[in-house]
């Protein structure tokens, strides 16, 4: 189990790739965008984006805005 942060919340995961992580966290069917350690990770790169101990993951969804 790796210690990581998702949206600034400490958590642990087993997933190797960002893609697996999203599935593990239950975002599988959601329209979301992702960043790892402050860098954008495009949808297509999630599969080959390796998740390491201590990674800071951002998962963002659409919201209201002005």
């Amino acid at each position, binding site marked *: 189990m790796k210690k990581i942060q998702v949206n600034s919340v400490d958590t642990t995961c087993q997933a190797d790739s960002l893609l697996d992580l999203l599935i593990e966290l239950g975002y599988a069917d*959601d329209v*979301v965008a992702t960043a790892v350690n402050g860098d*954008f990770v495009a949808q297509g790169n999630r599969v080959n984006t390796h998740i390491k101990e201590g990674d800071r993951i951002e998962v963002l*969804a659409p919201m*209201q805005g*002005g």
Partner: protein
Amino acid sequence: MRDFYGVQLETPFMLGTAQYPSPAILAKAFTHSKASVATVSLRREASSDKAGQDFWRLIQDLNVHVLPNTAGCHTVKEAVTTAHMAREVFGTPWIKLEVIGEEDTLQPDVFGLVEAAKILTEEGFQVFPYTTEDLVVADKLVNAGCRVLMPWGAPIGSGMGLNNVFGLRALRAHFPEIPLVVDAGLGLPSQAAQAMELGMDAILLNTAVSKAGDPAMMADAFASAIRAGQLAAKADPMVPRDMASPSTPVLGKAFLD
């Protein structure tokens, strides 16, 4: 009518999606506004909470252009990353670029704004920069590749109207080919009409509609006022005449001799 990165808008009204009493009222307000653009944003979402997904479906049903913003970003890096995430989620190269420099007035940090605008333009974005009325900043934004400018009327959410009419007039006069959108600070339709009469190309607002007692009716009011100002600018208004000075012999004079 000037176009927005090649897009001719059906109406010069861009409406925000924040702070409505309910999604239903948001949808109703958009219908009444006949807005052609909706601004949206991104937020962290717990996987359990699907609010974002519902919101996105609602926006898609509005059948308007979507303009994602980078609200809340205080650094170039944040803004650029957010822009990339927004482009993927919302599937548009349009980005309302906000780089906030001051917490109270939420006014732009024009330094970060120009830097971020340059980066994003090079990365293929079509940038709608939220800026001030500063002519020199505007010139740098245009040099950075911006083909739309969005000067503020007043601080976001203030409803004060146009704090610097001279500045907006100067911006219009110096950038005849650039579409200008007054973004933020309007509270009343008459202010939106005034901005359009000054030759602005569109109005972007949110609070004045979402926080009105009747958002749908207020959306209708702004739509009507924006249309009025746009027509007036085209219809060649009369020139005002100052009638303070008399042409005829002055009153009372006789009685003084």
